[in-house]
């Protein structure tokens, strides 16, 4: 079973100065598993996903991604980043490049893929997120939902084994949330290993294999969505759920 773990965290601790943001985190994500991370703001959930591809360093414990131990050496981090795609809350598309160029940049310059092949792959991925007709537009000419779909396609262009989503719909107008979630649901159906920080509980219910609830830097609960939503074990989770579902 240990071999099947795509992500494994053992006793991970992280501090911002003297403030401990992650406390003794143990988490294993199996291949193909979909995890939804939730919790109040400041609970450390974003920090946790950012740790998986080395955007944040950690101070204690051990993080292994697809068998590669993430330490502070650039080689390991680079190797892991090749396996892990990430989607940000604020899209972070490159504004000086067209949608297509956003997708081809990394395959060409990291994977050394010939430009023609990279473009073919990019078009295919843009097709998949249903935005191929916008391939030659610049990010500023696209709506938020379209930008986020381009950002998902950009991450997929590196053929990752794991996809991380850090609040992918939080910056979107309500009417655009669905088009992004639809793409994510499809991705999940194709068997991608996914770690998603989100407050979209509908998405968590339908897609997640497990909901991981965090508070104050700790994993408080980890359970299948049905169990988590219907019978949370802790008072903290109950309070959180009542706050986000109770209106």
């Amino acid at each position: 079973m240990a071999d099947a773990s795509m992500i494994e965290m053992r006793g991970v601790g992280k501090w911002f100065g003297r403030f401990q943001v992650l406390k003794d985190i143990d988490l294993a994500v199996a291949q193909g598993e979909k995890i939804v991370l939730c919790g109040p703001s400041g609970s450390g959930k974003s920090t946790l996903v950012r740790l998986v591809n080395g955007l944040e360093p950690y101070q204690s414990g051990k993080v292994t991604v697809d068998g590669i131990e993430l330490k502070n050496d650039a080689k390991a981090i680079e190797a892991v980043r090749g396996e892990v795609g990430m989607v940000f809350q604020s899209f972070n598309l490159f504004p000086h490049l067209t949608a297509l160029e956003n997708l081809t940049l990394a395959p060409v310059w990291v994977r050394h893929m010939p430009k023609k092949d990279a473009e073919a792959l990019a078009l295919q991925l843009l097709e998949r997120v249903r935005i191929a007709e916008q391939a030659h537009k610049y990010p500023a000419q696209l709506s938020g939902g379209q930008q986020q779909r381009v950002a998902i396609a950009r991450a997929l262009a590196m053929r990752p084994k794991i996809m991380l989503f850090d609040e992918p719909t939080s910056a979107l107008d309500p009417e655009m949330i669905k088009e992004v979630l639809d793409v994510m649901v499809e991705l999940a159906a194709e068997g991608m290993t996914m770690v998603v920080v989100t407050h979209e509980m509908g998405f968590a219910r339908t897609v997640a294999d497990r909901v991981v609830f965090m508070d104050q830097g700790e994993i408080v609960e980890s359970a299948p969505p049905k169990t988590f939503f219907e019978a949370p074990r802790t008072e903290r989770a109950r309070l959180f759920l009542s706050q986000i579902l109770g209106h």
Partner: protein
Amino acid sequence: MKWLRENLFGSWPSALATLAILWLAWMLVPPLVQWALVDAVWSAPDSRPCRAAGAGACWALIAEKHRFILFGTYPYEQHWRPGLGILVLFALYVASAMRRFWRARLALAWLGGLALIGWLMWGGVAGLSYVENERWGGLMLTLLLATFGIAFAFPISILLALGRRSRLPVVRALSVLWIELVRGVPLISLLFMASVMLPLFLPEGVSIDKLLRALIAMIVFAAAYLAEVVRGGLQAIPHGQEEAADALGLPYWRKTLFVILPQALRIAIPPLVNTFIAFFKDTSLVVIIGLFDLLTSIKVALGEPAWSGFGVEAYIFASLVYFAFCFAMSRYSQNLERDLERSRTHVLREN
């Protein structure tokens, strides 16, 4: 009529201002035209016609001395060489200004062009007689200083700006040292140091010529200023851009080259061009170490007793030449900005 009433005589103060300006124009413009165009002496073998009663501007001075103003003390019969050199430089400027030529081959064209200019100016091989660079001068020298200066200072400044943000303490310290030390002294003192002190530090027998020393001083100076401009651009890039590039696995230099710099330099176009323009004019400071740039050539031309006293015309001409180049740079940068505008807008709702 309506426009006049609304914009020029809309209220008592504005009407008064309009009248005052009209009166000033009436007082100044006709005499100026009379002097600069109508009564002007356009060509004369010497200054006598200019000194006649009622003569206007003495443009004959420019006509007579234009070769000296353009090429300084370069051997007269060889003037076609710097002349051709200026044409090559202009061709390079124009090609570089066109975005469709922005390919790797442009850099090769510059290398080739500059080598060609070097051969034309120095000579000494392939049938051209040798001309030592002590004799280079005039507009050609100004253009060479400015072009070489910017061509070297700009890439160095990018490295300095990146160095100043580097996580490596030594790199950061050296960059900060360069920038702060150089910005803390006037260009004049750097030029003096380069021409007077630098030779003292060099080992016996090694000497770098005066022009090169001046050029190095100017590059060192301009790089420090440009570095801060570039850094300003770098700081305007949202952190998310860097993170996105990191997450895609782009290593530092590729990230910098393809993601960060294109955006940072675009933001920095106005202050960059500002600094380029200032630098172009600063080249005239080489006079203090005895190089004959455009301005100095004009001054020397005026020094001849035959033409003394026509400083106004000479300096108007110098101003026009400087203005033409600076205005061209300024207009070009505005066009470039407009061109790049479509993708300039930042990502929607950045947080």
